[in-house]
């Protein structure tokens, strides 16, 4: 009889999410101590707040354990195969903007486009005997993009953090990572390919296609959507 709403459990993404709902007359708050991940929604009946790591929200939505969830559109697309079979986008929330991009060393003056990267990868493989390495944690999105673009002779190497440093450290030749201003990339002597934007991500309110809907839930959702459609 209650709708479960999953939101990020900490950081700026949580604060911005609380602000976004607050501006629409719904108060989201953490309850209990600072360290306890419990929360409450006031301003509407029948909605439970579930605080989760942003990276777990796609999986929880796909499993149907939460009805609604706020997370980055990049995480949903990368975590879930055939993501739009599992979730639908209800609202683009207008914050948490970040682009997933392919970046290469600035010194690669011969490489500006994805086609250049492909050509450089062929020569690299012939010279070094292994495929050009691209460090990323967004394996599905990057692989699908490069397949669509017809890029060959590359391999993805997993990097869960400090990805911008992998080229300098010699564990990758290029990277695919999230950037908002590009400053970290520049500081690490990297540049974005001119047509290398894989996905423009932002915080998004998703609805699960897999969650069970009890009597009353649909009415709650309609009431919620009415509220979300109008800024107070």
């Amino acid at each position, binding site marked *: 009889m209650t709708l479960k709403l999953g939101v990020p459990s900490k950081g700026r993404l949580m604060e911005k999410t609380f602000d976004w709902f607050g501006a629409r007359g719904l108060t989201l708050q953490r309850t209990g101590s600072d360290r306890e991940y419990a929360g409450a929604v006031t301003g509407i009946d029948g909605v439970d707040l579930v605080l989760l790591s942003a990276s777990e929200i796609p999986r929880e939505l796909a499993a149907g354990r939460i009805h609604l969830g706020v997370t980055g559109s990049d995480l949903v697309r990368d975590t879930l195969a055939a993501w739009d079979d599992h979730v639908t986008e209800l609202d683009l929330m207008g914050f948490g903007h970040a682009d997933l991009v392919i970046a290469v*060393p*600035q010194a*690669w*003056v*011969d490489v500006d486009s994805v086609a250049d990267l492909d050509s450089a990868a*062929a020569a690299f493989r012939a010279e070094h005997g292994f495929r050009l390495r691209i460090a990323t944690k967004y394996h599905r999105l990057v*692989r699908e993009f490069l397949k669509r673009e017809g890029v*060959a*002779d590359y*391999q993805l190497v997993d990097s869960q953090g400090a990805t911008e440093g992998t080229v300098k450290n010699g564990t990758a030749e290029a990277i695919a990572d999230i950037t908002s201003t590009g400053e970290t990339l520049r500081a690490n002597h990297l540049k974005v390919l001119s047509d290398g934007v894989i996905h423009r991500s932002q915080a998004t309110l998703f609805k699960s296609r897999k969650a069970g809907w009890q009597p009353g839930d649909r009415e709650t959702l309609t009431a919620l959507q009415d509220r979300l459609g109008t800024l107070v």
Partner: protein
Amino acid sequence: MNRLPKAEVRAEALRLRARFEAAGATPVDPAVLQPAATLLDLYGEDIRARAYVTADPLRGEQMLRPDFTVPVVQEHMAGGADPARYTYAGVVFRKQENDETRPNEYFQVGLEIFDGADPEGADAEVFAAIADALSGLAVKPATGDIGITRAALAGLSLSDDRRAALMRHLWRPRRFRALIDQFAGRKPTAPHRKALLATMAAGGDPLAGAGTMIGLRSADEIRARLDRIARDADQPPLPAAEVDLLDQVTGMKDMAPAALERLRDIAVDLPPLGPATTRLARRLDALDARGIDVGTLPFEAGFGRTTLEYYDGFVFGFTVPGRPDLPPVATGGRYDALTRLLGRGAAIPAVGGIIRPEIALHLRGGASG
């Protein structure tokens, strides 16, 4: 499609393998777990989307075999490259990222021929053995020949660099088309490339002030590619008439005898196509000698250009008309280059094909679905 009981599918697989054995093939049984490095190096990242990768603390990344061809070729090449015929039956594993209804574990029965004495004869032998095993079923054959497109490329007025780039992207039709348009001068030069060429033409060094060199790709490698870019800019555009010939070849789709006739006509303007059409003619003769009705055999030059990229000559498949929900019941082709890649110097012409016994059984009415 409803899945059939595994025991029934296994029995059908063994029955089919016994047929290939009776025709002279040696049964082999490659391991389910294969070293991932070989397959990744061969197929690239695409295979990660399709094969299950697991880790072994001592052996490193392992892959649940996504096909039999690679392990069979490896086993054969490790034991020398003598002529041989192999057959096998077992399950392969494929991740299904977009369609949950497609099985991720299914049987394959295969026949692989390693023999350079009469390649077109071997092509016909594999095709006929599979056609024979499927006789009586409502299936439709399709054939093609990657060698025809390769031969056409050999005949175009292209620099070696440009030809190599096209050969490399034979299996990626979209990038292939983009390259043709670029080489034919049908696409404007990108502003970045223009600026680069202008700098070099003025005697400037694009690498001067390029910033900190980081990573494994060296300044020498960057200069080598700059040289190639400069050389390529001097290339004359690929003449429109040649693009037209190539389009005629790659778009060829007809019954085999008619396709052969037209390819022979095109070979007058594109001489390197000659030997490839001769091979096609010999293959059709060999198929005819094995009782295949070549007069109604479809030929499509582009067939097989979007599959895994080891086929480099004859390719074929058998599909079920009116059932787009079913995968092909059989596929196969020639993979000479694969034996060289996995043979560490040795090579032997090779051709093979697989049947999916579950689909064959399904068509025999093994299930109501």
